[in-house]
């Protein structure tokens, strides 16, 4: 080995040793006069696009709460951990938050794989957990509450609207993963229930960006409406672009696109129907106040609030309300209280009292030429249906 190599090797070994040394003494900053909220979130991986907006809204909630005296007089602190948008990363993140940082509650927007990987650790640590991402439904744990939508709440607005527009035949396109399959399975049964006909449903691999074969089938089937539920990011975008390039003119409902992505897609996104529990131009004082506060706190660095970040904001308030109702941060008591308290937030009044899920006000919107979303209609307090019949 040459001297230069030896030197480089020593440096390398040194870096590793230093990293090890630096990591070991990190002891939990645990003190009796703080309440710590753990946020496992996909800072890297598939969710990393939306994760910053989620962290921002949690930061705003914490700042507001601390400004008004905290929770039961204790200062609220955030601990963010990267779950790499997957199972292995989530295990590390949950281990770290629950056993090392010893957080009082977990509030997170995560992939289903990450949530599932974290749940056994939550069970071991007996920590309250609020899941704030819309998902395919029917995930149940005695420690978990969900304040975002499930297929039962989201699908009806779009399908009902298409039916009113005269659509009779539908083509469903999804990514081959739990959310894509779960959403479209529900959509299919709903369409058939209201008398529509599904002329095709096709799934592509989760990371697929080539939709050629499926689009040829769509063109051959010539449906009145298309409803898609793909993985977020690239698959969703490529499908939209290729759909437009292929000249498909049918009504297009997208169950997976968010406002920000729609905006960045430009002309290709125009006319897409989307449904959700939050859009930035919901015309309520609570939403306007929230947007103003976000704008003031983050200014140019603001990540547009969306249907994944706003529930995070509201969940922090839900936890505050539950602790105050229980009069303690004791996990068992907080968990009981979480199902009873209501939060007034940008999405309206939300109570997670339906089998650990929440009835939500849903909106149907259409992407406009300027990338904004125009709200076409509002559906009050849509019920999440039977999600966890074994839990109250």
């Amino acid at each position, binding site marked *: 080995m040459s001297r230069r190599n030896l030197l480089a090797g020593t440096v390398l070994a040194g870096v590793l040793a230093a990293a090890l040394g630096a990591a070991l003494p990190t002891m939990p900053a645990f003190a009796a006069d703080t309440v710590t909220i753990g946020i496992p979130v996909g800072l*890297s991986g598939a969710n*990393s*696009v939306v994760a910053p907006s989620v962290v921002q809204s949690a930061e705003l909630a914490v700042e507001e709460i601390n400004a008004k005296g905290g929770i039961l007089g204790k200062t609220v602190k955030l601990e963010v951990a990267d779950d790499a948008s997957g199972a292995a990363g989530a295990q590390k993140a949950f281990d770290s938050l629950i056993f090392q940082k010893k957080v009082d509650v977990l509030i997170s927007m995560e992939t289903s794989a990450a949530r599932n990987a974290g749940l056994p650790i939550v069970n071991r640590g007996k920590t309250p957990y609020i899941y704030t991402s819309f998902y395919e439904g029917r995930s149940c744990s005695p420690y978990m509450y969900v304040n975002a939508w499930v297929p039962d709440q989201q699908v009806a607005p779009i399908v009902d609207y298409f039916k009113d527009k005269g659509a009779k035949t539908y083509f469903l396109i999804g990514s*081959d993963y739990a959310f894509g399959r779960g959403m479209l399975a529900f959509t299919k049964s709903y369409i058939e229930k209201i008398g529509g006909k599904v002329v095709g449903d*096709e*799934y*592509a*691999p989760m*990371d*697929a*960006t*080539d939709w*050629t*074969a*499926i689009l*040829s*089938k769509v*063109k*051959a089937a010539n449906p009145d409406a298309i409803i898609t539920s793909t993985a977020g*990011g*690239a698959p969703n*975008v*490529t499908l939209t*672009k*290729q759909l437009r*390039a*292929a*000249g498909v003119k049918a009504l297009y409902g997208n169950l997976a696109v968010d406002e920000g*992505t729609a905006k*960045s*897609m*430009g002309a290709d996104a125009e006319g897409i129907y989307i449904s959700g529990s939050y859009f930035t131009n919901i015309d309520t004082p609570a939403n306007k106040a929230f947007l103003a506060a976000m704008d003031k706190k983050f200014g140019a660095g603001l990540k547009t609030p969306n249907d994944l970040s706003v529930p995070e904001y509201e969940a922090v308030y839900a936890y505050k309300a539950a602790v105050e109702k229980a009069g303690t941060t004791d996990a068992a008591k907080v968990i009981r209280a979480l199902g009873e308290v209501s939060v007034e937030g940008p999405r309206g009044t939300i109570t997670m009292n339906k089998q650990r899920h929440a009835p939500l006000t849903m909106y149907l919107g259409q992407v406009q030429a300027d990338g904004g979303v125009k709200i076409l209609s509002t559906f009050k307090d849509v019920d999440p249906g039977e999600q966890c019949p074994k839990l109250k």
Partner: protein
Amino acid sequence: MIAQALDILTTAAILYAVATGLLLVFGVMKIINFAHGGLMTLGGYAALVTTQLGLNPWLAIPAAALFGAVAGMAIERFVVRPLYARPLDAILATWGLSIVIGQLITIAFGRGVQFAQAPLDGTLDVFGESYSAYRLALVPIALILGAGLTALLQGTRLGLETRAVIMNEDLARGLGINSGLVRFLTFTLGSALAAIAGTLITPLSSVDPGMGVPWLVNAFMLVLVSGASLVSLLVSCLVLGGAQVLVSTHLSPVLGGLTIAVLAAIILRIRPQGFARD
């Protein structure tokens, strides 16, 4: 029927454009460049920068070639050159590089999905079938790429020397050919081609730090099946790309996504030289 034929033709064209750079490097250097996916991503971002500067979208192609070539030179000099004798290690090192490229792009441009302007929009009518204009345009583009490379290899002194190195490197060196230089130029050209391919797929796709990676395995399998010949690459793209379209259409797109990799593995098991002649 016509639509399916067009699907096969355009899919083969895309695959051909994506795989040529890898083929060139594999043919001359006998190493698999796993940074190919990373270099494609680089090309995608060249297109993005072109869009952001408000330039003509076609200019993205030379810009990508420049980005790719410069990156390729650096990679050849510092990473690939010490590994000529260790081809399996070269796979690993270039894979590590593609991680590095992906992370650098993430730090510079963010993780988000972005969009480059497409040079062609809309559809064309072909035999009564309206079909994406850009996909159709890829067919002549791929042919031009193939013809240009063939002309380079057949018609120039460098091409002659490159072919000599492909056939028998020791002999070529004995004849006074600077095979080190040939390798360097080949890798540079291969990297430029990878970046160009990255630009070419942006109108069909989004621009994000992982955009090149899904293409890597298919391109890699196509190259292994083709040996070192641009002609057999064309055949493999048509056959395997065609199989992918047919399986996706008639069986399931999920199986379609696996078609190229699985078929190529089986072809190589039965006939180790693949589509290449002996």
